[in-house]
């Protein structure tokens, strides 16, 4: 069932939060002003492994303005909260209780906290702490550790890989490496906590208000109902705010300790050791194919790094099991334990590094076969989900290839590497497939109609810069028959009905339908009462025939003397759907490579995506532009450098951790292909954020190969790697 479409669905509405953001009046967590606000500052370990043997805090305790100094002695009384990756599937990113013991698990671990009247006094106090350690050599390189099978995780095996390779006419085998990365949202993680008796209010920059509430409730032994978490604006998350990190618990502990509201803001350098990372991966891909391009075998072995205590798996092989029709597939996922903080999901987890390897390998195969890489993918198109046999809920990947190639001007005949030259600059084109799996989560939402002709909708979801305020307003407008500017959208508050975390590109897809349900409920309740009420002008009218809008409900509310009516709606996506639910896409990239210095510039990219129904092409396009830009970052720049001996991040700041600047981005083109997904929900929208990242790096790497004949299998593709792989020299 597809909804009737009013002009609001599909409208390219501007972001409703734009004006407050560009005028600096949006209140982020760090802007929340509370009387008597004190400030907490964290002291972090300067070794990566060992024990604290002594900590001298006397000078800190007597420093001006200092209210409290807490060490790693467990005296804060924070209860254990399960991690997201444990069997209990809790809300924490790392299950170790902060400041609970003297063991150091990673460089930058929180080892003390200073609370003071002002931020400056807290910083000055923290600097007076002297720490002694017993130091052990950390294990920090993925090569130095022994891979293990993650507990409870089985290899994915379909058919028989050996047989598949034996019948192949052509095989390709290659190793790929991707570095650790950090999310680096613009807004560093910040928490402001305030206790009144045993009631706790927390302002937090988070992608998961309900998770923060649950974590705090169990850490401090109070009922969840006593904890309210607010997160009105979030300056990006990219996964760093998707689980709860120790500093959130510490902020609340500090506020309880000093009996005042406390703010704790991580610094940019602290963001590199306090709220997760995308771990490094090592991948091996083996492909077998017939001469005509049909795949006979895919083997994908991925190894990713995790911390000593958490079993976090960067699932590089996830997309490999569904992207192509192939009878013989083996996917193995291993982890190695390094002395690092627990990694977590970051922008298309698993799929971003996994697609780099798989889609590079497909390109290597196309080259071996002397076949157009688009054609190779079409020949292996999976008409149903090959991992489960289920039909797709909606899939227009063929159109993505076709429409993208057409817009890009893809030339299937021009596939010989190193043949297009403009002076010293080599030009190349490359492409890759994209896919993103949806992870259904139940959501509830609230809707209220008011006698002044406005409406309020609310859900404990978030706008992490993605446009949620705008898009949910459009969805409500569609049902309620009033313009979005008359709808107040409330987000980021645990007092509102619960929604899943804003991760995995799922908000519009699963929270959107809950908004519809809530709006329908409040509308239908009001109409049901009206048609049954002899006093109402709507008495005995047929509900479906009533044109609903502000005029209808304002009159009804005025007549019955109610200022407002409200309802809650629920959306329970079918976890055991008959359908496999994925978004799809295709990337095309053109690069210009300096043949001699090896510098790579991406001149243009085209991404064609099938994300189901596009509620707002303007915000959806922005999401995909952002995704493609992060894909470019992954291809050419992004990498966290860890010192191999001491285990610290070498340049924990944005001067050293490179993301693209405006001047790096040529022309990016986003095309929407496809139609409303009839099976995901009656809204028909699937995820439209992270898929922009998936495959983008491979498209660029493939274009670099086409330009130069150099296959760089280690990200990022820096100038020295291009030169090292090049026979040109100079």
């Amino acid at each position, binding site marked *: 069932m597809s909804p009737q479409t009013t002009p609001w669905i599909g409208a390219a509405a501007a972001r409703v939060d734009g004006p407050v953001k560009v005028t600096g009046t949006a209140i982020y967590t760090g802007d929340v002003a509370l009387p008597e606000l004190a400030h907490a500052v964290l002291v972090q370990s300067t070794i990566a492994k060992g024990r604290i043997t002594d900590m001298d805090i006397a000078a800190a305790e007597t420093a001006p303005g200092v209210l409290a100094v807490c060490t790693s002695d467990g005296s804060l009384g924070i209860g254990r909260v399960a991690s997201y990756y444990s069997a209990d599937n809790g809300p924490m990113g790392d299950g170790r209780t902060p400041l609970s013991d003297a063991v150091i698990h990673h460089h930058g671990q929180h080892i003390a906290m200073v609370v003071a009247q002002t931020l400056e006094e807290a910083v000055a106090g923290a600097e007076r702490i002297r720490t002694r350690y017993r130091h052990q050599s950390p294990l920090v390189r993925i090569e130095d550790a022994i891979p293990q099978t993650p507990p409870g995780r089985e290899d994915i095996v379909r058919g028989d890989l050996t047989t598949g390779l034996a019948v192949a006419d052509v095989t390709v085998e290659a190793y790929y490496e991707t570095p650790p990365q950090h999310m680096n949202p613009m807004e560093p993680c910040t928490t402001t906590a305030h206790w009144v008796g045993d009631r706790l209010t927390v302002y937090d920059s988070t992608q998961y208000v309900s998770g923060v509430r649950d974590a705090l409730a169990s850490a401090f032994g109070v009922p969840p109902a006593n904890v309210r978490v607010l997160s009105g604006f979030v300056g990006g998350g990219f996964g760093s705010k998707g689980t709860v990190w120790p500093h959130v618990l510490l902020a609340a502990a500090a506020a309880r300790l000093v009996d005042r509201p406390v703010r704790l803001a991580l610094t940019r*350098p602290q963001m590199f050791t306090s709220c997760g990372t995308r771990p490094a991966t090592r991948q091996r891909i083996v492909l077998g194919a017939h001469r005509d391009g049909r795949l006979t075998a895919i083997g994908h072995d991925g190894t990713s790094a995790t911390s000593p205590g958490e079993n976090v798996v960067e699932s590089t092989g996830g997309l490999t099991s569904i992207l192509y029709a192939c009878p013989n597939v083996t996917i193995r996922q291993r982890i190695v334990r390094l002395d690092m903080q627990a990694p977590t999901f970051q922008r298309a987890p698993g799929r971003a590094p996994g697609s780099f390897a798989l889609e590079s390998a497909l390109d290597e195969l196309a080259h071996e076969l002397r076949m157009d890489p688009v054609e190779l993918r079409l020949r292996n198109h999976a008409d149903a989900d090959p991992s489960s046999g289920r039909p797709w809920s909606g899939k227009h990947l063929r159109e993505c290839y076709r429409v993208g190639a057409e817009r890009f001007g893809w030339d299937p005949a021009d596939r010989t590497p190193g043949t297009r030259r403009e002076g*010293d600059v080599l030009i190349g084109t490359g492409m890759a497939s994209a896919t993103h799996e949806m992870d259904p989560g139940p959501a509830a939402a609230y809707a209220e109609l008011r006698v002044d002709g406005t409406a309020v909708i609310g859900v404990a979801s978030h706008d992490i810069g993605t446009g949620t305020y705008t898009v949910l307003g459009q969805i409500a407008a569609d049902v309620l028959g009033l313009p979005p500017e008359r709808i107040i959208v409330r987000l980021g508050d645990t007092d509102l009905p619960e929604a899943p975390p804003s991760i995995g590109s799922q908000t519009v897809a699963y929270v959107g339908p809950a908004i519809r349900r809530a709006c329908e409920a409040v509308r239908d309740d009001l109409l049901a009462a009206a048609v049954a009420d002899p006093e109402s002008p709507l008495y005995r009218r047929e509900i479906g025939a009533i044109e609903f809008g502000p005029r209808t409900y304002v009159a009804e509310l005025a007549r019955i003397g109610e200022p407002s009516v409200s309802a809650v709606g629920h959306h329970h996506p079918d976890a055991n759907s008959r359908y496999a639910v994925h978004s799809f896409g295709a990337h095309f990239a053109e690069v210009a490579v300096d043949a*001699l*210095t*090896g*510098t790579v*510039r991406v001149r243009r990219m085209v991404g064609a995506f099938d994300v189901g129904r596009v509620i707002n092409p303007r915000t959806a396009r922005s999401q995909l532009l952002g995704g493609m830009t992060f894909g470019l970052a992954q291809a*050419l*720049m992004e990498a966290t*450098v860890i010192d191999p001996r001491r285990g610290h991040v*070498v*340049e924990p*700041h944005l*001067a*050293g951790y*490179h993301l*693209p*600047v*405006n*001047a*790096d981005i040529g022309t990016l083109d986003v095309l929407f292909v496809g139609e409303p997904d009839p099976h995901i929900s009656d809204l028909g929208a699937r995820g439209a954020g992270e898929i922009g990242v998936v495959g983008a790096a491979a498209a660029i790497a493939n274009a670099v190969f086409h330009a130069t004949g150099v296959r760089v299998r280690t990200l*990022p593709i*820096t*100038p*020295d790697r291009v*030169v*090292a792989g090049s026979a040109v*020299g*100079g």
Partner: protein
Amino acid sequence: MEFLRPATWEEALAVKAQHPSAVPIAGGTDVMVDLNFDRHRPDALLDLNRIHELHTWQIADDDTVRLGASVPYSKIIDALPDRLPGLALGARTVGSPQIRNRGSVGGNLGGASPAGDAHPPLLASGATVEAASVRGTRLIPIDDFYLGVKRNALEPDELIRAIHIPSATGPQQFAKVGTRNAMVIAVCSFAVALHPRARDVRTGIGSAAPTPRRASEAEAFIRAELDDTGLWTSAGELPLSTAKRFGELVARAAAPIDDVRGSAAYRRHALAVMARRTLLWTWNDHRATGRAAA
């Protein structure tokens, strides 16, 4: 921390003499970053921003530009690209518009980072640093200015007042390799300036040795080549093999290290490429303008 704000140059020198450890602050684009990262905690800051003359420049009779120490890069790009083309090209690659509006050549010299983008063009133009103290004024040839990693020839009581840079008499070039198109610390950089009247070619290497430095052997080689083959007079084509050899010698002059931004081997390679290219560009420019003038 004391914050000293002299209103005149003389007052600044007096303050610096009194507080030799005071850290001068011009645009602040290095100083503030250091303070923020707690790399330095000076007991005093000496703010030079009230001293107007440091933001001005004059042209001397011999066409030398006397560039005030605090003149920001954006001014150099706007007002001096004809007289100081090499420096203006380098200035264009510095940071972002905000950084170019604040950052200055005096600050670049004060910091003396091997990666500073002003240094290679200053070396190639043969600039002189005007350093002053209550004891008097010294003119330090740029070749003697850089002493070590982030160390320069200034005495503790000295301040840079101006940089004297001869106006270009021939084409100049600057090239930089970085992993992105702006806001990037050079992996390595190179500047070359032709001085047709003096029949000289000068160079500057950045980010590939403990200090910015010239490639003396490469300069001697190209000077001799141009003389021996009569190319200055004939304005003929520069053989590619000569440019290549020049590039190799530039690479040899470097003493790079492996670091997170690139390997030593890559830096040498890239320097050879940049040197060859920029030499050919400047020479071809020289031939074109020479012909136009003739």
